[in-house]
């Protein structure tokens, strides 16, 4: 009921704050419980302040900052209650190199912690590829027909190295 929801909320708020600080190397972030007519259906507001900046509306954050804030929130939810899989489609598209690295570190931690979360992510980013435990390629050797193939990590690294 409501007591359980409030307890969960408290845990989510603390974890969200921690993950935010880790992904942003500082700053602070908070969740706010907003009462609605339904006592077990609150609204949840986000207050976030990247390091050195003033606390402002989250809507004013940059594209990359919003993505990172969202990832901190997802991390908190997964840590509280792991799921059978987590699928992330190009969530690193808006991130700069330094933030891609922090994003991958977050996934690695959730993957090795008690949660043992398994992630399948889609990415065009070479830094994300480099952090893969398993790498798959999708291609269309016959046009319009997708094929999946396992990619050897060392071969891929060689290929990326050559293309630079």
């Amino acid at each position: 009921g409501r007591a359980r929801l409030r307890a969960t909320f408290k845990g989510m708020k603390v974890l969200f704050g921690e993950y935010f600080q880790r992904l942003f190397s500082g700053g602070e972030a908070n969740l706010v419980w907003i009462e609605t007519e339904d006592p077990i259906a609150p609204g949840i507001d986000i207050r976030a302040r990247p390091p050195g900046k003033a606390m402002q509306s989250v809507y004013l954050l940059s594209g990359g900052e919003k993505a990172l804030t969202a990832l901190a929130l997802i991390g908190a939810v997964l840590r509280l209650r792991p799921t059978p899989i987590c699928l992330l489609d190009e969530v690193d598209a808006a991130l700069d190199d330094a933030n891609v690295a922090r994003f991958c570190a977050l996934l690695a931690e959730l993957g090795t912690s008690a949660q043992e979360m398994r992630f399948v992510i889609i990415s065009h980013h070479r830094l994300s590829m480099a952090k893969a435990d398993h790498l798959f390629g999708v291609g269309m050797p016959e046009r319009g027909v997708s094929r999946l193939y396992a990619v050897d990590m060392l071969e891929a690294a060689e290929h990326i190295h050559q293309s630079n």
Partner: protein
Amino acid sequence: MHITAITLSGFKSFAESTHLSVDRGLTVVIGPNGCGKSNIIEAVRWVMGENSAKRLRGAEMEDVIFAGTRQRRRRQSAEVRLTLDNQARRAPAPFQDVPEIVVSRRIERGQGSTYQINNQEVRACDVQMLFADLSIGSRSASIISQGEIAELVENKPDARRLLLEEAA
């Protein structure tokens, strides 16, 4: 409990049966634009019971069936299977005693979708219920489609309540 495999057959650009095994840690899927990566994510949302064709970029649900190319005829059906590992025997009833749970959804042109769990035909809501018990589902925060990551932050406060319910 973990999803250990995703199998697509006739789903969107995956004309042929395709098996993706999901191991521990981080799996990264790469490839050029338009090769089918997001279609895999949508296949998982679909087999978990996604009802809105629009959320799968289609106009109607049959749009997920392989539509053919200039060289290859279109298919009459599409099927996606998810394999869940239940070694720890923690699955919700009535599946707590089986080592593996295989959930599948199939759609035939002109006939709509059918669902199965371990080869028993079930209703869509049974599948949605099973995944809901596992805190996941086609609208879960555990599945973020392309372009949607910022929505968690840009949404209204009441849209975010789902996260709280998932975590509880």
